């Protein structure tokens, strides 16, 4: 039962995002990167699978600022290997990233064949695609997204996968292994790893390096960002002020006027 987890660093929106001087990208001066939240859930799902069925979990990430800490945290949580792919420009589109990964993964010793390749189902900077389905196509593997639960039937090389639809409805599917899954949530929230364990991992474990083979045909389908800006709100609420009682009576007025009451 081997799982490869793809981790991506995305801008941390806790910081105010600013547009760079070129008007088309993010200003990097105070920019911090954080692990894509859905990828964290994917890691948790992989670790849960390992706890239930044994096997190994390998975390793979493209090189980016602050990615080392994320990979060490993955190791501290129980991943068996952490692999950083170097030689990539930062700010890669998702399309190119999927391309790189599809070419790098087979070159890493002992990584493939894996039963599952999992990643978060989306990331906040996915402008030109989502990594899991794109990778699935490159590697000619079946794909399901918005996954919330995976149960394994390893004897038959199949998995039963639950995914989210709308209105709280879930769909249950059977998929042949190996498969690529885009994870919405694991069965449990991502586990907490104490700082001391991450530090211990930094001292005692290593991150493997992998290199991207040279780009075969020079790039992805061309998309071009013309400009980037903070969205202007179409409107803004009329703010009500005062004591809770005053506000309550204003709201009641509005409700009566609008015929809600």
């Amino acid at each position: 039962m081997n799982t490869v987890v793809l981790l991506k660093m995305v801008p941390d929106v806790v910081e105010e995002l600013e547009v760079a001087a070129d008007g088309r990208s993010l200003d990097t001066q105070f920019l911090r990167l954080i692990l894509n939240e859905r990828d964290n859930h994917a890691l948790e799902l992989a670790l849960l699978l390992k706890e239930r069925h044994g096997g190994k979990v390998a975390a793979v990430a493209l090189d980016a600022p602050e990615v080392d800490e994320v990979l060490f945290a993955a190791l501290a949580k129980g991943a068996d290997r952490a692999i950083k792919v170097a030689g990539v420009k930062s700010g890669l589109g998702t399309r190119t990233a999927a391309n790189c990964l599809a070419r790098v993964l087979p070159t890493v010793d002992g990584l493939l064949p894996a039963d599952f390749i999992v990643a978060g189902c989306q990331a906040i900077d996915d402008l030109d695609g989502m990594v899991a389905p794109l990778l699935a196509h490159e590697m000619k593997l079946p794909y399901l997204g918005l996954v919330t639960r995976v149960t394994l039937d390893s004897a038959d090389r199949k998995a039963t996968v639950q995914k989210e639809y709308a209105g709280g409805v879930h769909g249950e599917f059977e998929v042949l292994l190996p498969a690529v899954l885009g994870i919405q949530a694991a069965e449990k929230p991502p586990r907490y790893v104490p700082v001391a364990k991450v530090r211990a991992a930094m001292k005692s474990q290593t991150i493997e390096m992998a290199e991207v083979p040279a780009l075969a045909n020079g790039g992805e389908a061309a998309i071009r960002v013309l400009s980037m800006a903070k969205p202007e709100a179409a409107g803004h609420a009329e703010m009500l002020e005062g004591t809770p009682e005053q506000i309550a009576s204003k709201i009641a007025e509005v409700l009566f006027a609008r015929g809600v009451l």
Partner: protein
Amino acid sequence: MAGNLWVVAENWRGKVSDVTYELLALGRELADGLGVPLEAVVLSHQGRALTHELGAADTVLYLDHPSLAEPTAESYGAALAQLMQARKPQGVLVPLSNVSWDWVGVLPAMLGAPYLNFCKDARVVDGKIEACCLLYGGKMEARVVSGSPVILGVLPGARSAANRRMEKQPPVEEVKLESEKTPEVTFKQYIEPEQGGVDITQQSVLVSVGRGIGNQENLAVAEELAAALGGAVSGSRPVIDQGWLPLSRQVGKSGATVKPKLYLAVGISGAPEHVEGMKNSELIIAINTDPQAPIFDVAHYGIVGDATDTLSALTAELQKASARKGA
């Protein structure tokens, strides 16, 4: 010759969803701007009736095949790729929702065509489609262009669906699908959420709680108010994930899309995935302690303050009002 503009309909469990009509509205603008026909694409199994109200398009391309009974990546993706390679449209609008998620993800790779994600708007500039895409959880907007054919993943709410659901039956062209590939993904069943006895999509008033409600005990205050207003309590994803409310009460991308007369957003910050599910409510009033919360961009009225205080005061006010009426 430049290709047509396509809108891929979203049909699920026998119904065409509203987002399709929103896309048709946008598609019509783009098609007119490009000077090409607007075609709607419907993929289903024995769902011909679904094409009846797609009159906003000039034609409907209809694919019927057993493999298209459920919208999986491999079935819908392959079918659309095949169709696009044959017909060569210059632009395809696809709905970005949980239902279409899987095939929207693989289609660009299957075609080797550019894809623009999180589109909230698009227009034609100098004969090309220019999209406006929301990034970083809605914190930034980017104007993007690309080569052709281009696939646009469009967020719900880009246009109004009103007036686009036509009584007129458009010409339908049935297209034969060539595919006998053994599926690697097999649909088993749908799992319905536990019904709490309440269908939030049918309520005219929703008191919706988010993380800002603080703790589970404060739900009682929301329930009281909902009762006083003759409505029900719903919630955003974090509240459901915590187990404070059942899944059937979730509003948002993975939950329900609601359009009540009154949507009271309590302690909800207004993340895009939630707003998607409630932005078309008639009257939106938001209460949040953070004056910068994005919910205030969507709401009609806003209050910066403590949730429980305001809710209790409102409940008291309503009880007084109804007492006056009764007296």
